[in-house]
């Protein structure tokens, strides 16, 4: 029963960056939802709109120039785009927290790390300053940093340790929903595994729902229950892990898999997706992936594909599936 509780629901979210000369269409009409304890992987290239989506959930899209054009975001029953600022500040950090991408710049250089963790606790829990600080030190220990180092400043920490502090800040008040924006990109491989384990443990212990933003399909396979593949601000394929990995539908998702090294055939050349993501200020009228797609047909140039359900859980946005019998080379067919 508990596990069916819906922690997050995003409906038709559209976010633009309106600059003087042009409009960047960063996120275009995306919808997804997340239940308690679930982890969804938001996958896509740089510039696909993943981080903007995450910031929109916290109503933190930099404004100006960012504008949430339309849509509805519900976090733990709160309509994030409608709540007054005061309520918003209560929700941020308490119900929904975010681990930011770049640990080097995400910490305030003039406050000690424990102060920065304690601040969150002080705001959201009814504790004294001293208790908050004590709890902050406990959080530090939990992420594997000795409590004695709590009085040190960010510049005295390595990149990996800073990232753990950022994680400790995000987890300080046991949020219902955790957004992890490429939590391992800035780290070297040995630390990556530790950080992922950390997030996974917390998820198991506290039943936190997680949005894992990454471009690394390996991380998705390891940590996620569901996947949403984003391209040019749209979700082009979504489903549970098995759906997307084993029954791949969208040509772009296939392209992502093909550009990974194959462990069974180490000599095989990597197959990158040719070309670049379209200019987000000037998206094509049809499918945004059409110029790079090896399956593209005439209709793809003019018609915007809708997200179509293939099974209860699995959806994809590709016009070619209108033809009976079409499937991409990688995908098995759903029985």
């Amino acid at each position, binding site marked *: 029963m508990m596990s069916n509780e819906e922690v997050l629901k995003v409906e038709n979210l559209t976010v633009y960056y309106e600059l003087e000369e042009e409009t960047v269409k960063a996120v275009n009409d995306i919808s997804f939802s997340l239940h308690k304890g679930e982890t969804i992987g938001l996958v896509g290239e740089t510039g696909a709109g993943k981080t903007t989506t995450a910031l929109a959930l*916290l109503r*933190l899209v*930099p404004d100006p120039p960012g504008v949430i054009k339309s849509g509805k975001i519900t976090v733990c029953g709160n309509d994030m785009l409608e709540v007054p*600022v005061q309520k918003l*500040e*209560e*929700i*941020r*950090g*308490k119900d929904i*927290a*975010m681990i*930011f991408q*770049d640990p080097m*710049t*995400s*910490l*305030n*250089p*003039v*406050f000690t790390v424990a102060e*920065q963790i304690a*601040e*969150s606790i002080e*705001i*959201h829990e009814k504790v004294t300053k001293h208790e908050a600080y004590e709890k902050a030190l406990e959080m530090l220990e939990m992420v594997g940093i000795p409590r004695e180092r709590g009085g040190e*400043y960010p*510049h*005295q920490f390595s990149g990996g340790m800073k990232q753990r502090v*950022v994680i400790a*800040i*995000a987890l300080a008040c046991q949020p219902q929903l955790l957004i992890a924006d490429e939590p391992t990109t800035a780290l070297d491989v040995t630390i990556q595994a530790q950080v992922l384990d950390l997030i996974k443990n917390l998820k198991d212990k506290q039943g936190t729902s997680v949005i894992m933003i990454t471009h690394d399909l390996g991380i998705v396979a390891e940590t996620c229950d569901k996947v949403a593949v984003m391209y040019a601000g749209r979700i082009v394929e979504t489903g549970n892990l098995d759906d997307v990995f084993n029954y791949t539908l969208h040509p772009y998702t296939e392209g992502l898999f093909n550009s990974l090294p194959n462990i069974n055939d180490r000599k095989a050349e990597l197959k990158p997706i040719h070309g670049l993501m379209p200019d987000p200020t000037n998206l094509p009228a049809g499918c945004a992936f059409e110029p790079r797609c090896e399956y593209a047909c005439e209709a793809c140039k003019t018609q915007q594909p809708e997200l179509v359900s293939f099974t209860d859980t699995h959806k994809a946005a590709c016009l070619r599936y209108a033809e009976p019998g079409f499937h991409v080379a990688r995908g098995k067919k759903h029985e």
Partner: protein
Amino acid sequence: MHRYVLKRIILLIPVLLGVSMLVYCILDLAPGDAADILAPDDATLEEKEALREELGLNRPVLVRYFEYMWKLLHGDLGESYLSPVSVWSAFTQKAPNTLKLGLASVIFAVGTSLPLGIYAARHRGSWKDAISMILAILGLSMPNFWLGLLLMLLFALRLGWLPSGGADMGLRSLILPTITIGTGMMATLTRTTRSSMLDVIRQDYLRTARAKGVTEEVVIKKHALKNALIPIITIIGTMLGGILGGATLTESVFSWPGVGRLIIDSLNGRDTPVVTGCIIMTTMFFSVVLLAVDLIYAFVDPRIKAQYASKSKKGGEKKDGEKAATA
């Protein structure tokens, strides 16, 4: 840290030497001397020469300078040529007035420019920003003495609310000169605050703070301001350091009995010991305030503190190395 302070204090010596020598020599190059001023109008050349002899002005400038410095080394700033008081007592009599005026101006400037600069930065590009910046440029481009005269015309002459000069009406006589000096400072400080806040305001760590649920007010006043403070403190420090000697014009306009006017009057009288003494005191004050500002940096920004610490550690190691070499 202690080594750093000591080093800075030792560095003060060449600065004071240079400044005093410059002032002493420039005054000597200026046409006329104290004897010309002191002697009655109908004095003969011989009488003037005798007066020079008496004041010791007939000897070469370098000799007089070193004599002066020798006395200074023993804590004696010398005697005024023109009046029977010592330079020290002339200075200490005027300094409190100038300090009072200077501090009031800096407090006025900080009190107005920090809110204005932060406000402008938060509304960058909007009309609110434009109006704040117009105010700042206006303050910057108005000459002190002119603004002083205008204020005097309005508030002293027209409205009769405030005295037009002097320092004998307590707080009330402080208001006009404070605004006159403070406006220029306010303008500079507003621009510095704005640009410094703009550097900080888009930093990722402010986003982190907002994501924690920190209110916007705390984000700006605590998280952003503390990071933007270094350039602001530098400017405030320079202003504080300059208050002893920097208010000369305004002090003249408002007949404020301060160090600035003492220097002007002594300059006109070619009273070299008083001018040099005042400038040496002003220089010392300036240097000490700047040192204090540098030390305050360390409290504001832990990264600078770490730098000071590592510097003195390096110095320590070097010394150990020397010791080892001699052993």
